[in-house]
């Protein structure tokens, strides 16, 4: 028999603490596949956030640290400056990065820190029980926007991939999603590019993943994939917003 798909070697046997159909699981799996395929596992230091992926250190056979809420890019700065030849991968959700840690991610970009950042945007706080995030859509009902997010009091959803593309210290910024097999394949390609740029020392590489949160959105998983397509993508368009050419960057 020929193996078409096997559980990645970089994964432990732990069962995730994610809800059924959660996009974190798909992205984590792509990361594990790439650690295997790119031979990165033994030189990797994963920096996890506070949020639903708070226990993700248990899923990977790789060195890892769980940061304080929002502070992963600062923690990763200390790690990468100490060990510039290691592969440092920062993973953050929307509440963690765009709310609590906006300062830390922006200044990691200002400095052009040479690590890769995976940003999970599911337009809601998952772990704490479905509260409004900076990425929550207008009209989207959450437990702290019970009648829908209103522009007048809570402003605008934040488009991180576009913002990061404006930062000179960022070498690569793309927004992808995981709501179909083709898009999952495209996400893997984006992650691979972001990871490989770290070895070219180009600066910060950034991949935003629109990710389903069936529990937070009170939807069945397959319905959540449709909601993502219809509601999120018009506000958060997919695409490459920055890709530094050969020889550019730091």
């Amino acid at each position: 028999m020929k193996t078409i798909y096997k559980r990645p070697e970089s994964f432990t046997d732990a069962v995730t603490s994610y809800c059924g159909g959660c996009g974190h699981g798909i992205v984590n799996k792509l990361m594990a596949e790439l650690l295997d395929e790119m031979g990165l596992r033994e030189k990797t230091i994963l920096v996890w956030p506070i949020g639903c992926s708070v226990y993700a250190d248990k899923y990977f056979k790789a060195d890892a640290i769980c940061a304080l809420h929002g502070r992963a890019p600062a923690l990763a700065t200390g790690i990468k400056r100490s060990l510039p030849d290691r592969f440092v991968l920062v993973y953050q959700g929307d509440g963690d990065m765009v709310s609590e840690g906006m300062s830390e991610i922006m200044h990691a970009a200002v400095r052009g820190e040479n690590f890769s950042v995976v940003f999970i945007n599911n337009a809601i706080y998952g772990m704490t029980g479905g509260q409004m995030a900076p990425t929550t859509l207008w009209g989207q009902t959450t437990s702290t926007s019970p009648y829908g997010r209103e522009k007048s009091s809570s402003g605008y959803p934040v488009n991180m991939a576009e913002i990061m593309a404006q930062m000179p210290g960022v070498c690569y910024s793309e927004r992808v999603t995981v709501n179909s097999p083709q898009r999952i394949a495209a996400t893997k390609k984006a992650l691979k590019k972001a990871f490989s740029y770290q070895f070219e020392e180009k600066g910060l590489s950034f991949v935003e993943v629109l990710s389903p949160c069936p529990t937070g959105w009170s939807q069945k998983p397959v319905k959540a994939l449709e909601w993502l397509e219809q509601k999120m993508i018009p506000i958060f368009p997919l695409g490459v917003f920055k890709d530094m050419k050969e020889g550019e960057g730091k």
Partner: protein
Amino acid sequence: MNRTEIEFERCKECGYCVEFCPKEVLAFGDKVNKRGYYPPAPVKQEACIACGICARVCPEGAIEVYKEV
């Protein structure tokens, strides 16, 4: 015959594999696992073309696919 293996206890019944299988090989099962989910199982294994889509969309890394050669 090609093989689709679903790790029964790892599954959380999201249904992505059932939804995206191009050959309708999988269907929700009637057995419950320890976490209270009813994992899908192959019902038309002979139709499986070993494309691997079910495994790639699985958020739990619970599916492995093998092709007969």
